[in-house]
C-alpha cells in the first residue's frame, strides 16, 4: 500500500482503496471525492462544509495544534496518572531512547476522531507516537504506544504499519515500544470512526508487513508496560525482544481466554499469570523468558534502551547491508592463557563464556536469552572488529549436553545471524544430544532435525572449533553439516560417533553378559579404548572430518583472519538467506 497519508490539516483525497478494501464487502463504495475526504459509503455526514473554514488553514493554527499535541498528549490527567505510577510517557521514552534532537515525528496528526466534524478535538497520535531518529548515530524508525490515549482504547495498527513500511523502504531498523493492552482496530468501520482517513489508518493492521517481513530489516520490540493484543504482535515477530521486569506480555486478553473457556477458575491459565513477572520464581525473571521468547530482561527502561542499542550495534541496518565494523587495528596476539581455561579431563566443567571472552574483542560479549536453555550459549560479539554470532556449548550445564530447548534457541539464533549476514563461530564441547524419555516427549527428533536443517543452509561465513569433545549427530550438526567454511579442533579434542565407553557398553552387550562380573570393567575399558582409536583430532583430520588442528592460543587469530578474508572475498548477497523467512520461534 503506498497511499500517501497526510496530516489532518490537509486531507488529500484518498483513492477508493481498492487495493485494501475487503473483497466484495457487499457495498459498492463510491470513490471518496470530496475535499475533506469524509464521505463514507454507509453514512454521509449531514453537514459537509463546502470549504474548510479559513481559520483552520493558517500557519498559526498549525503551530498551535502541534504545540498542543506534543505537550498535552492525552491530556494533563493522563500524563499525571502515568507519572504517578513512576512511568514515562511515550514521548519521554522516545526522548530517552534516541540520540538527543534526532527525533523527527511522523503521523503527528493521526487520529481516530474526525477532527473537522468532532465537537471537541480529541487526542492526536492515533495511540502511537513514532517517527525517525538515530541511535548511536545510526538511523532507526521508532513507534511507541501512547498510553496516555490508548488505554483502554484501540491502537492505530495502521500507523504502526506506515512507520514499519517507511523503515523498510528506507532500509533502517524498526524499534517498537509496547506498553498497552491495545485492542487493534481490525476492520473498516464505516460510520463508526467516520472518515476515509480513519478507515485507512485504523483498518490496515501492521500485520501484513510484519508477517511478510522475512527479516529484511532488524525489528526490535521493547515491552515496557503490561502488553496484550495488537501491541504484542511485534513481540512474536521481532528479532530482539526485551521485556521490562514486572510487566505482563500476552497475545490474548482475559476476555479472549474466558471466551475460549480456557481461563475459568484455573488461575494458572489466566493472562496475568501467563507471561508476567514470576515473583515466585525470580531465577526466571519472567515466564516469557522461561518460554524462551524473550531475548533479554531489563530491570529499568534505561536498561532496555541500552540493550536495544547494544543489540543493534552488531547488526547491519538492513539485510544485505554492510556490517557495522569497528576500527580495531590492534594486532591479534597469540593467547597463551586461553588453553588454561579448559581442563584436560573431559569430565571437568569449565566456563565456556570465559573462553568466548578471550576469543572475541574486549567487552563485546552480548548474550541473548541468557536464562533459557543454558546448556547452549548464544551471543553476539566482535572479533577483530567484525560482528560475529557465537554458538557455544556450556559444559557447566549438564556437561554441555543438548536438549530440545537448546535446539530451539540455536535455530532462532542461527536464523538471526544468517538473515543479517553476521558470521557464525561455533565452539563445541558436548557429549551430544541428551537422550531421555522426556526429551522424546518434547519432540526431540523434529527439533534436532530442524537445527540440522538450519545449519545445512548456512550462507554466512562460519567457523567451527571443537574445544574438547564432540560426538555423533551433535558434531555433525554443530559442524554445520559440512557447510561451515572451516572446521577446526584443538589438539586435546575428541571427535567420534559416540562417547566410547557408552558405545562399548551398547555394542558389546552380549559379550559383557557372558563375562564374570569381575572382568567386565576391564573388558569395557579395553573395548572403549579400541573404539576410541581415531577419536583424537589426528584421526579425524586424517579423513577430513576436520580441516585443521590449531593451537588454542591461535584460535582468535585464525578465526579473525578467516572472517576478514571471507567477508572481503565473498560476492555480495543477491538473494535473501533461506533462513530469513523462518519464524523467530517454532
Amino acid at each position, binding site marked *: 500500500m503506498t497511499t500517501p497519508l497526510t496530516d489532518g490539516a490537509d486531507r488529500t483525497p484518498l483513492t477508493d482503496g481498492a487495493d485494501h478494501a475487503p473483497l466484495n464487502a457487499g457495498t459498492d463504495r463510491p470513490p471518496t471525492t470530496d475535499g475533506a475526504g469524509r464521505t463514507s459509503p454507509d453514512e454521509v455526514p449531514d453537514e459537509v462544509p463546502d470549504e474548510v473554514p479559513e481559520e483552520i488553514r493558517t500557519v498559526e493554527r498549525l503551530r498551535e495544534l502541534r504545540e498542543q499535541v506534543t505537550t498535552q498528549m492525552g491530556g494533563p490527567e493522563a500524563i499525571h496518572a502515568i507519572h504517578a505510577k513512576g512511568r514515562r510517557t511515550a514521548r519521554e521514552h522516545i526522548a530517552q531512547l534516541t540520540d538527543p534532537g534526532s527525533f523527527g515525528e511522523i503521523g503527528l496528526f493521526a487520529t481516530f476522531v474526525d477532527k473537522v466534524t468532532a465537537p471537541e478535538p480529541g487526542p492526536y497520535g492515533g495511540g502511537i507516537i513514532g517517527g525517525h531518529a538515530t541511535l548511536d548515530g545510526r538511523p532507526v524508525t521508532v513507534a511507541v504506544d501512547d498510553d496516555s490515549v490508548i488505554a483502554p482504547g484501540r491502537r492505530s495498527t495502521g500507523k504502526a504499519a506506515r512507520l514499519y513500511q517507511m523503515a523498510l523502504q528506507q532500509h533502517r531498523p524498526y524499534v517498537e515500544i509496547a506498553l498497552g493492552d491495545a485492542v487493534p482496530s481490525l476492520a473498516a468501520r464505516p460510520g463508526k470512526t467516520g472518515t476515509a482517513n480513519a478507515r485507512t489508518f485504523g483498518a490496515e493492521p501492521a500485520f*501484513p508487513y510484519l508477517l511478510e517481513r522475512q527479516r529484511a530489516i532488524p525489528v526490535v520490540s521493547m515491552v515496557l508496560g503490561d502488553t496484550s493484543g495488537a501491541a504484542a504482535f511485534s513481540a512474536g515477530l521481532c528479532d530482539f525482544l526485551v521485556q521490562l521486569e514486572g510487566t505482563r506480555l500476552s497475545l490474548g486478553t482475559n476476555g479472549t481466554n474466558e471466551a475460549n473457556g480456557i481461563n475459568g477458575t484455573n488461575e494458572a491459565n489466566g493472562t496475568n499469570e501467563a507471561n508476567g513477572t514470576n515473583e515466585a520464581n525470580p531465577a526466571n525473571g519472567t515466564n516469557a523468558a522461561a518460554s524462551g521468547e524473550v531475548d533479554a530482561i531489563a530491570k529499568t527502561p534505561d536498561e532496555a534502551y541500552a540493550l536495544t542499542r547494544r543489540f543493534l550495534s552488531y547488526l547491519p541496518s538492513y539485510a544485505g547491508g554492510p556490517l557495522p565494523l569497528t576500527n580495531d587495528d590492534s594486532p591479534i596476539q597469540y593467547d597463551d592463557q586461553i588453553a588454561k581455561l579448559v581442563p584436560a579431563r573431559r569430565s571437568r566443567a569449565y566456563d565456556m563464556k570465559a573462553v568466548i571472552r578471550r576469543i572475541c574483542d574486549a567487552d563485546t560479549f552480548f548474550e541473548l536469552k541468557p536464562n533459557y536453555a543454558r546448556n547452549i550459549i548464544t551471543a553476539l560479539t566482535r572479533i577483530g572488529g567484525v560482528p560475529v554470532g557465537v554458538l557455544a556449548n556450556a559444559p557447566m550445564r549438564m556437561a554441555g549436553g543438548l536438549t530440545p530447548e537448546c535446539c530451539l534457541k540455536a535455530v532462532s539464533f542461527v536464523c538471526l545471524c544468517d538473515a543479517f549476514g553476521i558470521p557464525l563461530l561455533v565452539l563445541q564441547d558436548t557429549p551430544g544430544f541428551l537422550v*531421555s524419555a522426556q526429551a522424546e516427549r518434547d519432540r526431540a527428533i*523434529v527439533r534436532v532435525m530442524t537445527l540440522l536443517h538450519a545449519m545445512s543452509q548456512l550462507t554466512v561465513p562460519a567457523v567451527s572449533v571443537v574445544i574438547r569433545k564432540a560426538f555423533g549427530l551433535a558434531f555433525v550438526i554443530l559442524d554445520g553439516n559440512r557447510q561451515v567454511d572451516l572446521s577446526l579442533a584443538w589438539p586435546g579434542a575428541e571427535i567420534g560417533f559416540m562417547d566410547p565407553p557408552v558405545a562399548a557398553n551398547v*555394542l558389546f552387550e552380549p559379550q559383557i553378559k557372558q563375562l564374570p562380573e569381575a572382568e567386565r570393567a576391564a573388558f569395557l575399558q579395553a573395548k572403549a579404548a579400541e573404539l576410541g582409536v*581415531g577419536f583424537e583430532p589426528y584421526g579425524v583430520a586424517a*579423513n577430513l572430518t576436520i580441516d585443521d588442528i590449531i593451537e588454542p592460543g591461535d584460535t582468535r587469530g585464525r578465526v579473525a583472519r578467516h572472517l576478514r578474508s571471507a567477508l572481503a572475498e565473498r560476492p555480495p548477497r543477491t538473494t535473501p538467506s533461506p533462513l530469513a*523467512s523462518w519464524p523467530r520461534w*517454532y
Partner: protein
Amino acid sequence: MSEAPAKTAKRPTFREHVEALVDPGSYVPAQHFSEGMDEVSDTDGGEALIDGRPVTVGRSGHVVRRALNRRQPYVAISSGTGGLARGGRRNLGVLDTVWGMSGGPMNTEMASRNRDIPVISALVHHSFGDSSFFAGMSDYVVQLKGACLALTGPRVLAVGTSEQVTMEELGGTEVHRRNGQADTIAESLDEVYAAIRRFLSFLPTAAGQPLPVTAPGPHPDLKPGPDPRELIDGLVDRASFFELRRDFAPALVTGLARLDGLPVGVLAIHGAFAADECLKATRLVCTCDAFGLPLVFLIDSAGPSAEPGAISRAMMLAQAVQLAEVPKCWVVTGRALGAGLLVTGPARIATDLVIAWPGARAGWDDDAAAAGEHHWAADGIVTPTGTRATLTAHLGAVLGPAPVSRPGRTLRTWPVGF
C-alpha cells in the same frame, strides 16, 4: 510394554514391505548398492508404482537421492539401529559413520530439499539413529503400533544416563500420538501401507506437477454443530477426509480431503489456538503450500491462549498463513474473535474467500462481535448447506479445470517438523 510385532511373528523383510505397499509387480530394485551397509538382506530400495504413479522406496532413507533427482515421492520403510552398529563396529570414525551412507538424512540435499517432493517415513519397527532422523525431516510419518521411534534406544539410555525405560515408554505410539511426531498411528502393517497410499493420493508427484483430481465424490450430509470432524465430513466429498495428527492439539482438527474431487487441506478449530494447535496447523499449511493444495479453514475460536510461548507460535502460524500462496478459504462457523482472526488469516490480508455462517460472530471480543460486526470482512453470509457449493465454485474458478500445483515460494523452505 506392548509386544512388538517382530517378537510374535516373523518380521517382513524390506522387500516384503515394498511388495505389499506398491502396485503388484511394479517394484524394480536399484542397481547400485550403497556402501557401508553390513546387514543387507534385500536391496536398499528402488522404483515402483503406487496407484499407477511413480515413487522411490528405500530402506530407512537410502536412495532418497534417486527420488530427489527424478522428482517423485520417496517412501522410507524405516527400522534401524542407526550408524552405531555399522560404522562403529568397524571403527571408521565419524566421517564414514554419518557420511558414508549415500542419500541418508545427513545428505545436504535432503536437508535442503525445500519440499520439492513428498517424503514419507513408515516406521514399521523400532527406529533409532538415521531412520529416526529421517522421520524428523519427512512430510508424513506413519508409526506402527509396537514400533519405537526415538533418537536412540533404551540400551543407550540405560548405559549413558541410567534411565530405565521400555521401548513403548521411550518412543511408542502413545508418546508420538500425543506429541504430534507421528501423523498417523497404524494398528497393523496393512494400515501402514494403506495410509501411505492414501496420503500420496492427495499430492502431486512433485511440486508444480498436476494436482491429482478425481471425479467428484458423493455429496455429504451436513449436520451443523460444534464438532469439527462432523463439520468437515459434512463439507467435503463423502468419506474423503484423511485426518492427520488426530490426538495432538485436539482443539484443531487437520487433514487432507477432497472437494468435488479436488484435493485440499482442511483445518477446523473449535477452541483456543494454544502453542500446540499452532504447531499442528503450521505443518499442514507448509505442506499444502509446497504442493499446491488449497487451504480451507473452519473457524470457531476466541483466539490464542495466553500460555507462555503462545505469542511466537501464534505469530508463526499467522506468518505461515500470510505467506502461503495457495488459494485460501475461510468459513467462520461460530466465533472468530481476537487475535484468532489474525492468526488464522482473514484480517483482510491476502484473503481469497471469507464467508460466514448466519449467526457467526467476528470481532476483537464478544462485545464487539455482538455489536453487529459479524459482517466484518466477510465476502458473504452463506448458509451451512450452501457452503460446499460456494467453496467448490470459488476453487473451481480460481484453479480452472486442470489444476496444476503452484507451489508457494517461501514456506517450502520452512522447517519440516513442527
